[in-house]
């Protein structure tokens, strides 16, 4: 990347020369030059402190996700419970961050409505620009939170995909086994039938018992498979529900972002309106004063003309 020309040194030289030109004594010049080096620790307003804290917590959330991403996705490292635990923690964290953002937003609105109660004597802190800036800060925070949430959603989606894929081959395998057992049953029954035909009735009884046993086995397998099918369907509906909830949560965060964006744009509009309003006010004042002088002059002239006429007649 291109290096950029830092002219601060040249600026310092010019400042030094300017101070000498203005006749500042040594002490003053020294203080001025020192102010370049010692940056005063500025007091931050509570709003900024809170905003920075929220930013830090969102950053911590992102880091947490990063470090546990591998564990979460890799099938062998974690169990289902651990994964659920991670999800739970992340959700709690997201909720707390959202609350912090809400608190910040409410504080802006509270300040605005408080100041309106007074006779328009707002402090320096509450002009339109500052309000727009604060809205902007809240918007940035909410956008960041939204991006972290969507990353988390993606991880969850991958997990569900894996789960579905795992279920599918098992079911294929199960149905394969089922078919195999059925075909083997058929084969065995065929063999049995042929045996039966070959064998005579004295062997009918034990063969029928064998058939009975095989039938029972088949039925047991069928029941087992049916129950597994039910379980799978249940899991599937649960996963669909969870993905729907995911989407819901992310849409909520998105909605909040949109609302905040709306507020922010309104605040920026307000700064422009304030400027226009100032212009109109100054115009009105001019006109007002102009018309006032005219009116006074008019009345003056009228009074004197009346006096004159009275004196004359």
């Amino acid at each position, binding site marked *: 990347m291109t290096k950029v020309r830092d002219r601060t040194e*040249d600026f310092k030289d010019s400042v030094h020369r300017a101070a000498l030109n203005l006749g500042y004594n040594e002490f003053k010049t020294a203080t001025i030059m020192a102010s*370049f080096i010692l940056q005063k620790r500025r007091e931050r*307003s509570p*709003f900024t402190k809170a905003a920075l804290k929220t930013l830090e917590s969102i950053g911590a959330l992102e880091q947490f996700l990063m470090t546990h991403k591998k564990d979460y996705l890799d099938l062998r490292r974690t169990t289902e419970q651990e994964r659920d635990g991670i999800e739970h923690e992340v959700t709690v964290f997201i909720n707390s961050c959202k609350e912090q953002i809400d608190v910040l937003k409410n504080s802006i609105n509270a300040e605005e409505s408080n100041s309106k109660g007074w006779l328009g004597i707002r402090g320096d802190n509450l002009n339109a*620009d500052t309000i727009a800036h604060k809205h902007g800060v809240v918007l*940035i925070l909410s956008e960041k939170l939204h991006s972290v949430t969507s990353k988390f959603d993606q991880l969850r989606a991958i997990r569900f995909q894996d789960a579905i894929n795992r279920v599918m081959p098992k079911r294929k395998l199960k149905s394969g086994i089922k078919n195999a057992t059925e075909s083997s049953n058929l084969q065995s029954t065929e063999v049995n039938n042929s045996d039966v035909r070959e064998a005579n009735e004295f062997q009918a009884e034990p063969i029928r018992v064998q058939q009975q046993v095989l039938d029972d086995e088949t039925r047991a397998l069928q029941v087992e498979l049916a129950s597994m099918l039910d379980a799978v369907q249940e899991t599937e509906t649960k996963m669909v529900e969870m993905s729907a909830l995911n989407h819901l949560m992310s849409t909520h965060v998105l909605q909040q972002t949109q609302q905040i964006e709306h507020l922010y744009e309104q605040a920026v509009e307000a700064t422009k309106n304030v400027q226009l309003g100032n212009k109109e006010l100054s115009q009105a004042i001019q006109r007002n004063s102009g018309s006032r002088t005219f009116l006074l002059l008019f009345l003056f002239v009228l009074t004197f003309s009346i006096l004159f006429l009275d004196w004359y007649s």
Partner: protein
Amino acid sequence: MALNLRHKQTECIIRMLNLNQTVISPVGAGVGTANEEVYKILIYDRFCQDILSPLIHVKDLRKHGVTLYFLVDKDRKPVHDVPAVYFVQPTQLNIQRIVSDTSKALYDSFHLNFSSSIPRPLLEDLASGSVNSDSIQRISKVHDQYLEFVTLEDNLFSLANKNCYVQLNDPSAGEKEIEEIIEKIVSALFCVLATLAVVPIIRCPPGGPAEMVASLLDQRLRDHLLAKNNLFTEGGNFTSSFQRPILCIFDRNFELSVAIQHEFRYKPLVHDVLGLRLNRLNVKGEKGGMKSFELDHSDPFWMANGSLEFPEVAVEIETQLNKYKKDVEEVNRRTGGNAGAEFDGTDLIGNTKHLMSAVNSLPELTERKQVIDKHTNIATALLGEIKERSLDSYAKMESEMMIRGGIDRNELLSMLRGKGDKMDKLRFAVMYLISTESLSPSEVETVEIALRESEVDTSAFQYVKKIKSLNISLASANSASRSNIVDWAEKLYGQSISAVTAGMKNLLSGDHQLALTRTVDALMEGKPNPEIDSFLVFDPRAPKSTSGSSSSHLKGPFKEAIVFMIGGGNYVEHGSLQDLARSQQPVKHVIYGTTELLTGGEFIEQLAVLGKKMGLGSGDIAPAVK
């Protein structure tokens, strides 16, 4: 390594927005702990607003922590706790405003960034102003950003320098004014080279503003390279020509026809007819309201089809629309239309998968639809204008004129009396002047009468006619007017005349290639070629003494080129240079820049201004020699 100007400029701006600290890598490195100055306010002036608007959107500003952005002129209120990043041009007015802002303590700390190098006197003004108001502690940093140019695409930039052609070719311009203009152009070109971090080899045709710009730029680069901590990568002596690009500087008079001609390709049409400015376009929508569109590198259709002729573009829109409809149908079929199918386990799981993939692909589909809608709107608006002004017939006739070198008299008159607004007719007439080999005065008179019938202001026409007539009596013009005009301006004027002479001869060859493209091709090849042998060479890195012997290796084939046109350029030249670059084996890269992007109409206006300055109003027929 491809020189991507837009990319580099965006990087510089992002670095500036991060208060010129080294950008912390965003992937998992943690945020907020080391960097306390996260939220900032951006303040710019009008010129820098033009620089920023094609590169960054408001949403991206928020990503870098900028909460508010204001114009420097605007009345601003104090906002505590935040640093302010100023990005302004170094002018007296801006410095005064900054000083007043610091004295009013609007913000906590000020980071000042100037779009080009701030000169010493202004820096001292700033220093004395802030010392006076005792607000030194608020100014934390002062930087020179060297970003005083507007990048529209990856390889297209403009200096937004208005009326440059008029000022340079003005016969009454004094030496000081011309020097000022050249100085401005050179400093902006220096900014471009500093952003790209390359020291190119400079070539230009002899004489005229191109030579002046080239020599001054060469001087500037030499001085800068000698100073310590220069901005260009310390690479030692790069003598191999493979690493360095070539910078070709041309003057508008080199090829006048391209700026005036009617073109029928998509990008030039949109620029010419609908007024594309800083990648933004305002079009009357179908319901009657004005809609604003953005056409830049994020629009895949624009990038892919910008250089096609208009009918082909319409066909492309059709195919894209059909493809989109097919995709939408498929998505619908897979997810929604399965109502009648049997519901057993496999289908349900399959449905979920399809649902998820459909939901993921929906945003992409909506985006595609938006792009198609946008271009359909633009194409409809264009079609309306083309039909009304019969631009297709103008374009066809003009290209025929250039190829044939003349035109049938009846055709000419029928065009001038036909459809099209005044500017089109004037452009057509000027093209006729430029392209015809031998002008017969009677034809010219009939053309003028036809123009005056349509109430067209003929000053531009007169100007071009005068230039062409001076072409014949070149020597006498020099000697006759020497007594009246300042020596320097006269030299410039005479040289511009000779350049225009050469430009008149630069007609299109049979394969419809611009003279500019041919020349750049020859320069990049580096083989001896009678067209370019007269071109001068400047190499800022070579020591001053050796100019002839070691220059052989500098003429080798170049892989990258920066082409700069003084006086005005347009999308046609840009398009043809890109075609040239793509058609080469191996693929080369060409960056095209100009002092300002002019449509045909705007350029004719500048010619008209020149004509009026020379006293050639629409009233008199005989050219008045001043």
